[in-house]
């Protein structure tokens, strides 16, 4: 099983002489894309964490109405073909989209801007984070939350001082996943944001563009991407955790992807 998953990645690396990896960093297109990807993914990640964490906290409370429906909706974007996601985004924020028209009145046009890339990434990557965050919060012993309340902490303080630190392990893991996923996002981006070098052409888009051009460069960028993603994922497997359950999982509440 593992071997099967590993093989294709291995194959790519075998095709790319290591020297190339660094050579690629000389290539203007690659650098632009790398910078843009870093920028957009970082911003998107910020948004995801800022908006996703409280959302997850609410969803994690068993009293949340229509919880299961909500959970399903959160997962849905994961299973959409990215291209469809892109269409959806256009249909929502495009000029003729649901919000597009009203946005325009404020002179805001999202498609084909860096903002669009960010939106696309958020749309595609946030479910990974939110779902993980929900599980992380669910794994927090409710007694500890209650204890905080009786000790005079309001909802906000309880969230910040108890729930958040206790869930940190899972949140970190989730963030890493969505970050990596965001870094690799392609289909929705090219549909919704196009592929403007320096503006919306992220690493994966650059790879795509390079097929046209120089197949090897494409492979090289792919390898680069894999390496980065792997590094990020591996990094989060090493953070401390305070979950009561002696779970041996790298994710406190035995989270998953």
């Amino acid at each position, binding site marked *: 099983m593992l071997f099967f998953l590993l093989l294709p990645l291995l194959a790519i690396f075998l095709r790319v002489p290591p020297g190339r990896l660094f050579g690629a960093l000389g290539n203007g297109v690659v650098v632009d894309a790398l910078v843009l990807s870093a920028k957009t993914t970082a911003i998107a990640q910020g948004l995801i964490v800022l908006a996703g964490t409280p959302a997850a906290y609410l969803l994690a409370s068993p009293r949340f109405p229509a919880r299961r429906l909500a959970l399903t909706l959160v997962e849905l974007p994961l299973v959409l073909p990215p291209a469809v996601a892109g269409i959806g985004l*256009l249909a929502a924020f495009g000029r003729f*989209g649901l919000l597009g028209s009203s946005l325009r009145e404020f002179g805001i046009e999202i498609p084909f801007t860096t903002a669009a890339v960010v939106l696309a990434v958020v749309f595609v990557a946030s479910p990974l984070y939110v779902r993980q965050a929900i599980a992380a919060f669910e794994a927090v012993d409710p007694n500890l939350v209650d204890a905080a309340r009786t000790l005079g902490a309001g909802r906000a303080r309880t969230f910040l001082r108890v729930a958040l630190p206790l869930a940190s392990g899972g949140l970190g893991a989730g963030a890493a996943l969505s970050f990596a996923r965001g870094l690799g996002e392609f289909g929705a981006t090219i549909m919704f944001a196009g592929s403007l070098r320096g503006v919306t052409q992220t690493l994966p888009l650059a790879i795509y563009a390079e097929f046209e051009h120089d*197949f090897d460069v494409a492979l090289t960028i792919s390898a680069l991407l894999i390496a980065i993603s792997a590094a990020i994922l591996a990094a989060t497997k090493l953070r401390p955790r305070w979950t009561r359950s002696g779970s041996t999982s790298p994710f406190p509440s035995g989270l998953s992807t």
Partner: protein
Amino acid sequence: RAQITVLAAASLADVLPKIDSRPRYSFAGSDQLAAQIQQGAPADIFAAASPKYPDDLYARGLVEKPVTFATNRLVLIVPSSNPAGIHSVFDLRRGGIKLVVGTPTVPIGSYTRQILRNLGLTGVLSNVVSQETDVRSILAKVALGEADAGFVYVTDARTVGTKIVQIKLPAWAQPKVRYELAIVKGTKNRAAALAFVSRVLGKRGQALLRSAGFGSVDQSGQR
């Protein structure tokens, strides 16, 4: 003076920036670009690899009247290793060959069918193992040696260099592959857009297109 956005077919990725480096380019499959414009993507120029989409959008009143600015030719490509030992288009008649073409719905697909019809080789379509939705995928599969042969634009074939071998197709069989430009309706900087169009249609523009392997068109550009 405001920067314009050009949505252009992937096969123009190299040449257009050479002609005019100022606009923002977004290269993708013509079909995708068309879809984007339908969805109200804020573009000023649409440069497609065929008349189909511009005309379609024109009919829908989304773009102004399209003009042809270049032509292209098809070639048959095989991996440099040429596992199936194909040396002419007629070798495709052999069975068991892995042939990759575009789907009928994309330009490269329909053109491929035209040329095969002209050559009376429609039978070879039975060797098709995959109908790709863009030229890039056809190139990739042949370049990787997965497919034994594929039909692409000559301009695309050039970019893959030594990984493939081009097999010329008789000129008489070539379909008219016309690239069309259209200004998107409601553009905020029509002046700049017009300027871009005339640049592409201008001497230098046409020269550059030729050197990139495209066929140029007479000044009028109109049909």
